[in-house]
């Protein structure tokens, strides 16, 4: 019975991760404004903060990042690398800092979005394959992306944290 329950839990979790990536693709295509959001990145940060398990966070970042890469034109491993690192850092931060404060979350979302973009540029400079990152659209889009992720992340974190707040 336990193994059946575990399998169901894993399957639900896998569906959740797939839904995040698919939703990002659909929304960014249908509504231009969603091009500034990065739902997989926000979820990596959320998972790291709430679970505070670095190894699990590495796995989540790897899976989400590789799924993102597979449905886009970037080289496989680009988003995998950045999301893995972001998830790990957020899990580490979750064990060391008080990440329940709004200001902490805002700063983390801003810094991690910036880190994600900068890493893609660096990886693009090192690798021949296209990695995306800061395109010719440049600084303005990056700032909008940072603000969008921070805002959406705050909203989603606040909504999802309610069961945790009620339990404590």
């Amino acid at each position: 019975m336990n193994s059946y329950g575990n399998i169901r839990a894993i399957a639900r979790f896998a569906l959740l991760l797939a839904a995040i990536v698919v939703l990002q693709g659909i929304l960014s295509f249908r509504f231009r404004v969603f091009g500034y959001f990065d739902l997989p990145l926000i979820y990596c940060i959320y998972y790291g903060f709430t679970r505070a398990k670095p190894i699990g966070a590495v796995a989540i970042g790897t899976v989400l990042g590789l799924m993102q890469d597979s449905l886009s034109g970037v080289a496989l491993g680009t988003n995998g690398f950045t999301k893995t690192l972001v998830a790990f850092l957020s899990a580490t931060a979750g064990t060391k800092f008080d990440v329940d404060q709004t200001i902490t979350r805002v700063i983390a979302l801003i810094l991690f979005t910036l880190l994600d973009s900068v890493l893609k540029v660096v990886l693009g400079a090192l690798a021949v394959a296209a990695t995306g990152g800061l395109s010719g659209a440049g600084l303005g889009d990056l700032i909008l992306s940072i603000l969008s992720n921070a805002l959406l992340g705050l909203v989603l974190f606040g909504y999802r944290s309610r069961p945790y707040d009620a339990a404590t």
Partner: protein
Amino acid sequence: MVEESNKAVWLVLAGALVFHLVLMSLPAEQPSGTGFARSVVMEALTPAERLVDHSVQRVTSIWNNYFALLDTNDENVRLRAEVDRLRMELQANAEAVREAERLQRYLSLDTPDGPPPVVARVTGGDPSTSQRTVTLNRGQSTGVEQGAPARTPDGIVGRVIHASWSSSIVQLVTDPSSAVGALVLESRIQGIVRGNGTSELTLEHSEDGVRLLPGQVVLTSGADKVYPKGLPIGVISEVDTVTDLVSTARVTPFADLGRLEEVLVLGILNLETSEVSGDLASPSDSPASPSDSPMETPRR
């Protein structure tokens, strides 16, 4: 919360990062160039993408055809439901007629010899948020090949960079890593049209003594061996810079890349016959079909 040993954590992180770096450095040497792992993920996720896209369209249709009409229907409930039902049927038929008209435009296009072109629906965008790609609901099973060019009746859209069995990914011409061999219709200047991450393209050429002017039409030159010669790209909107070596201009694409619904995926270019019959390759070539003239106002 179980504490994980620091050493194990760092080993796992290092292993994962090295794994991603190795993936990025692997060249795409498989015959399809798409890779087994990417194909598996595409086959697993794109059906869900299509389902969500279809659901979003149905919800939008219901909202536009039912809820938005409640304020205009304050009479008998039965008559209101009947009128709404008839309106939904009418809208559904009208959408089908519009889709048929759009697809009819594809059938009237002249296409190069070789494998028949494939009409594919755009089902999703780029989830990585940093590149300009779209996902199509057609793949290798229907003849879509990696490297194949894609277009709409208005102009080129991009090229297929990944193709799995039932879906494919098209890199749009606005992508920063896209480059298309170009030809200015009026002056016959040859150059390269590059994407820059915005909705406009950049035309670069290095021919001396030639002046680019806004309003000039830009076509594919065929020099890149990807796009057949003579396909419409866009129109010059602004001439940017003139240096000793390279002149640049901004090009507005003919195809409305922000509202793609269907695209036509052409076959892989036959390098021996890179011209397209009936397209506007040069004034001396056979006249273009009226439906394929770039001088018509592009549909927006």
